[in-house]
């Protein structure tokens, strides 16, 4: 498997000749995923802490947490330890279990992948998480953000060390295999889409009259009124359909 990463995409060519482009996530998607994950892990850790304290001794115990006469054995084992573990191991554990993803990354539609496009391995995930120590310094992931902004693959130091990238997740969508269904992304069936692409491909060879007729017919089938529209406007509407 060979791979080549440009600024926006990672191109993977397998030994059997399949070439696939994987789109790399940039600063926005990365930050969005992190913010989501940060809130999830803080809420989980805090939720466990509050629940644990309430279960152990009610609201009175919750007040006692700031006093010295606390039952360390009980609170330590059942409340503080799991809360700290949730906060600290959220990223490494979930990235290993979810093959480079976390709930936040999933919501943002991204995933950690290796330089060959495969989901990152355990060693790579551990390395990128250890280096959060550096990336998160001095505060608010300043070093990591600066590194992402300056780096052409938009990765932080942890990713550079681990040999990982953050890519948009491309999952196998079984519904998409149903060729009789219209694609929800563009409201076009694959057949309509193929016709549309063919029309746009031949656009330069056609006269304006043919362009308007063909485009108007196609758009009318898609439920788009086209009365009086010029060739240029019709073309831009067709292109908008292609983009989905």
């Amino acid at each position, binding site marked *: 498997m060979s791979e080549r990463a440009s600024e926006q995409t990672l191109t993977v060519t397998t030994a*059997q000749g399949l070439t696939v482009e994987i789109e790399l996530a940039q600063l926005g998607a990365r930050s969005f995923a992190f913010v989501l994950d940060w809130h999830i892990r803080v809420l989980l850790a805090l939720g466990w802490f509050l629940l644990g304290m309430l279960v152990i001794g009610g609201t009175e115990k919750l007040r006692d947490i700031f006093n010295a006469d606390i039952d360390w054995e009980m609170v330590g084992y059942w409340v503080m330890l799991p809360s700290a573990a949730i906060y600290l191991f959220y990223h490494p554990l979930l990235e290993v279990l979810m093959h480079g993803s976390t709930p936040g990354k999933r919501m943002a539609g991204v995933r950690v992948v290796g330089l060959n496009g*495969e989901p990152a391995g355990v060693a790579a995930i551990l390395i990128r998480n250890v280096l959060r120590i550096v990336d998160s310094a001095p505060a608010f992931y300043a070093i990591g953000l600066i590194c992402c902004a300056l780096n052409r693959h938009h990765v932080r130091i942890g990713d550079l060390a681990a040999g990982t990238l953050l890519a948009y997740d491309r999952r196998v969508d079984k519904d998409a295999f149903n060729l009789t269904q219209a694609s929800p992304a563009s409201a076009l069936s694959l057949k309509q889409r193929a016709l549309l692409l063919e029309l746009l491909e031949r656009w330069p060879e056609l006269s304006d009259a043919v362009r308007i007729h063909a485009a108007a017919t196609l758009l009318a089938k898609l439920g788009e009124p086209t009365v009086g529209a010029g060739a240029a406007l019709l073309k831009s509407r067709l292109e908008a359909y292609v983009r989905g």
Partner: protein
Amino acid sequence: MLGVDGQMRWLSARAARWGVLEGWLKRAERSDSLDVREATELNEELAALTEDAQLARALAPRTRFSESLDALALRGHRLSERPLKRRGDAVKTFLAVEVPDALKSIHGALWVSLAIFLSATVLSFALVRANPELAQLFASEEMIAGVERGELWTEGLLNVMPSSILAFEIMTNNIMVTLVAFALGVFYGVGTFYILATNGVMLGTISALCVVHGVGFKLLEFVLAHGVTELSVIVLAAACGLAVGDALTHPGDQTRTAAFRDAFRRTGKLVLMGALFLVLSGIVEGYISPNESASMLLRGIASLSLFTLFLLVLSGRAFPPSWRGLSGEI
């Protein structure tokens, strides 16, 4: 050649196969190995799927349909190209080959790390012994006041919190120091140097302070059981950090990024093993070190056993020689 309609009909006819292949890949990904028949079947299916994916991309680029087919094909190709490994063998190879090899590769950095740590310790020890007031620079007033009264800050720790919590706190702190010493190697090794030197200075300062106020033996008694292994792990992690720094400053024939990645991956294995030993030494520090009923002999035996195990594991001698012959691949 088929027209658009013909190509769509072809893909429609093939669609049922993709669902079957997806389920089949799921099963294959979970198993460690494929037999010859399964591997042949997978290759045949993948060749057909590759053609389907290319056709789909030409007919409907950047659609859920073509991207799903690409994703399925890529998944299949990864499976067919991945070296088939037995998980048990991979662990054995890691312990018996990769960790000892990584240790050999940082031989020079290990000596440099040890030299920095010892120099900082000896120098600060000598300075504080000659001028005890210098201890204020590196130790808290509370600690100094306690030592001046002839008490160690460790005394009575067991009365404050249980051994288990104490051990956990200690091991968490030590693992953090180790990880920081390693990770700061990304600043061309300078960050690691500061962490190492600071730890050496603190050890030297506190030791000198204890000696000056007549509690040197008490300190030795406390640190004997866990200290040797704990400090060795910190020196080892710092050596790994220095090796990362060295890879960044002297990348050789590789690009700086590639050299950095290689160094981090190689030395990270040692840090992982070191962290496991910090868990063990944290247990010793929580249960044995503050326990006043533990004799010096017991502390010495614990220290020697832990350190010997540490050396045997890192050098790969703790494992049978047969483990070294395994590549991990079938």
